[in-house]
């Protein structure tokens, strides 16, 4: 490598030379474009984050009805807002593990029933008050209370008692749970002064930024919290979130340089966007999946052969190609994929019209099967339903498709009608995913899956601290869901984000899109 090129890349990384001039000079020195840009990228990483500047994010999901109450936050925009001003006790790490945040360390008793968290010392809220263990207790109390409207309520069942001891917060559970740290890393659970009991929408927290301007569904402006304790988060001086719900408008804003990054690039255009100059598309595998769900206790889907017939009648690879445009992976009729920490491979179920026809005949079902779908059940759901109709038709199974309105789909169709399209965003652990939707007593048991053996295995795995054993139990549970359950899971979707060349510092991260929503905090503005 020529010294001149190295010198130039370092200058470019420090912002003394713009990217275009660097690429030009690199070409003059005989370097290929790919080589020069790889070199620049590593030089930028090595030079470290640049502080200051204004970082603009074009983000999908916000609406003028959004509340600042962390418990009521449901969409990508309100989650991003929480990441800016608040901090949870623990956080999902980039590799899917757990990072301590407001707790500096934590430990479990040998039976995984009692958990102790030691608070990080010297951390203050944006109003100057110190963050205490009492605040943590109050926060959990608010989210888990009987009057709670929090989206995290379902995660916080089974707490027997909470107490504080100086800078320690102690939590006791009625049954052992090795995954408790993952539950406390839930995005709703940002720590607020007195748990937010006084004013849940005050947006006062200990996060890297302070909310300066808040127009729900339009624009949110944040400025750096000068007293923030962690130097690794929050490089830009100002962060602006622009809510852009229209897909084309969001991509256009990135193209025209009005924003530095956008989330949820439509899979259809992802490869086209990637070919544009000055923009980089990141397609990150996720635990999110698109599903066809049958109520396993409702006729005709209470018949195992009919369920298997439909599972063999779907062409998973074709869906990944035509619905996700390659931005995803084939599913295996279990909600679990390689994104989960304790995942193990199982034999892949494939499209097999003969087996489908065999099971369909064995089921004794006569006539067609009604499938309900809507545009908002997942992107491309009506198209996916038609692909399913064709592949099932080849096996002699007639699917009737009923298109339902977007409006009211989640209240009138999903979890009410016996066969429909839907999606799941995934959960940080297998325990959380299974207890949310596959445990007999789960509120969102949207496949009406009642299996005693499965429930017992779930509780056993939860109390098991030996990873090898847990892994084996989880694998068996996936097999049970896949063979017995009402879930047809053809594909896991990737999160597709795009960033401009004006920012650096992207790292592949598990969790949600935009680096688990840490991209605005971990990336920095270069130009």
């Amino acid at each position: 490598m020529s010294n001149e090129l190295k010198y130039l890349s370092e200058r470019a990384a420090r912002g003394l030379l713009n990217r275009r001039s660097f690429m030009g000079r690199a070409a003059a020195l005989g370097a290929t474009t790919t080589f020069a840009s790889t070199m620049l990228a590593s030089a930028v990483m090595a030079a470290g984050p640049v502080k200051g500047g204004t970082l603009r994010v074009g983000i999908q999901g916000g609406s003028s009805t959004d509340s600042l109450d962390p418990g009521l936050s449901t969409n990508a925009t309100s989650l991003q807002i929480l990441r800016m001003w608040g901090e949870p006790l623990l956080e999902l790490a980039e590799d899917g593990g757990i990072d301590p945040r407001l707790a500096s360390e934590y430990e479990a008793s040998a039976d995984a029933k009692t958990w102790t968290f030691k608070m990080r010392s010297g951390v203050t809220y944006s109003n100057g008050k110190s963050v205490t263990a009492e605040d943590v207790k109050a926060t959990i109390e608010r989210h888990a209370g009987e009057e709670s409207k929090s989206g995290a309520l379902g995660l916080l069942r089974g707490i027997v008692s909470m107490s504080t001891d100086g800078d320690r917060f102690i939590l006791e559970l009625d049954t052992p749970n090795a995954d408790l740290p993952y539950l406390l890393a839930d995005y709703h659970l940002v720590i607020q002064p007195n748990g937010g009991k006084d004013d849940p929408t005050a947006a006062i927290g200990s996060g890297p930024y302070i909310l300066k301007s808040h127009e729900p569904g339009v624009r949110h402006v944040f400025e750096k919290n000068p007293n923030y304790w962690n130097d690794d988060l929050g490089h830009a001086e100002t962060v602006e979130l622009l809510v852009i719900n229209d897909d084309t408008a969001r991509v256009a804003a990135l193209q025209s340089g009005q924003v530095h990054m956008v989330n949820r690039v439509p899979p259809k255009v992802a490869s086209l966007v990637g070919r544009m100059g000055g923009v980089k598309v990141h397609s990150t595998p996720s635990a999110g999946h698109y599903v066809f769900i049958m109520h396993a206790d409702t006729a005709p889907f209470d018949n195992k052969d009919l369920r298997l017939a439909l599972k063999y009648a779907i062409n998973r690879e074709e869906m990944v190609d035509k619905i996700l445009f390659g931005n995803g992976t084939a599913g295996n009729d279990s909600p679990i994929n390689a994104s989960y920490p304790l995942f193990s491979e199982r034999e892949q179920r494939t499209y097999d019209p003969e087996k489908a026809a065999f099971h369909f005949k064995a089921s004794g079902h006569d006539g067609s099967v009604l499938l309900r779908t809507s545009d908002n059940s997942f992107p491309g759901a009506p198209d996916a339903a038609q692909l399913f109709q064709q592949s099932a038709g080849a096996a002699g199974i007639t699917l009737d498709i009923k298109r339902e309105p977007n409006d009211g789909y989640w209240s009138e169709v999903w979890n009410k009608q016996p066969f429909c399209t839907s999606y799941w965003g995934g959960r940080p652990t297998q325990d959380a995913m299974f207890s949310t939707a596959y445990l007999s007593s789960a509120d969102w048991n949207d496949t009406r899956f009642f299996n005693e053996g499965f429930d017992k295995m779930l509780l056993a795995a939860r109390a098991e601290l030996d990873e090898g054993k847990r892994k084996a139990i989880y694998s068996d549970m996936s097999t049970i869901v896949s063979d017995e359950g009402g879930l047809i899971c053809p594909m896991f979707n990737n999160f597709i984000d795009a960033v401009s060349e004006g920012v650096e510092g992207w790292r592949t991260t598990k969790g949600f899109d935009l680096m688990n929503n840490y991209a605005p905090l971990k990336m920095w503005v270069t130009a």
Partner: protein
Amino acid sequence: MGPMFKLISQRIALGILLLLAVSILIFAGTEMLPGDLAESILGQSATPEALANIRAELGLNDPAFIRYFQWLGGLLQGDLGTALSNGQDIGPQIGKRLGNTLFLAATAAVIAVPLAIFLGLVAVRYRNRWPDKLISGATLASISLPEFFIGYVLIYFFAVKWRVFPSVATVYDSMSFLEKLNAIALPVIVLTLVVLAHMMRMTRAAILNVMQSAYIETAELKGLSAFKVIARHAFPNSISPIVNVVTINLAYLVVGVVVVEVIFVYPGMGQYLVDHVSKRDVPVVQACGLIFATVYVVLNLIADIVAILSNPRLRHPK
């Protein structure tokens, strides 16, 4: 003044009655929507306990007519109520959004209305010759294309290719007036193109209609120039149909621009209404509906009054 005053006050009374009827319609309509607010707030993450808690707190268990009269009572005292979804007062929120919508509509109108009338006059002056055909052809083409298509084409060229105007038209308080105008340039162009044809065609038709009259022939025989005949003699007598179509288009600029707002991410009333409809935020939907209805009724009232005033037979009754 007597009969005219009576006519005008009749119109205003009729307008108020209409608004009351509209308020009942709006209320009934929102009641008929599927699903309820509590389910929409929590979305897919609703649990039965959380749903019950939210319903009790928001008073969703009261019967519909009681909620209607409570709302109407508050309204008459100038209180639009509290948004159910985020607990904020509706008044200030709507005020801001309405201000934005009116700003966009006014800017578009300031360009579109004079332009449409001028083009209409030119078209009449050169009727059936190439300027007339060019104007008619171009405006008809722009009204025939869906507005989102025009919007995307403009974004592609003006924002992405040439970077003249921003594609995102978000405006906020700390912007200067010129910055705001720059931000809304593209939506204003789209709206102008969309409303131009209707007004221009109506101007042309109304004036052509008057041009058949005997007094126009007299004016021509007096030796006045063709444009002067149209502007001074024909135009004043065709004001009433033109004002009608202009007000309909002004109303459209205020209430019908949801698509343009979404494409250009403009924080106006349309987007605000859509957000709250999908959350079943009934008080906000009703307030928006009523404001939209008021805009229509008031603009039509103005059109009627202008028509009355511009008609000498009504101004000087025998």
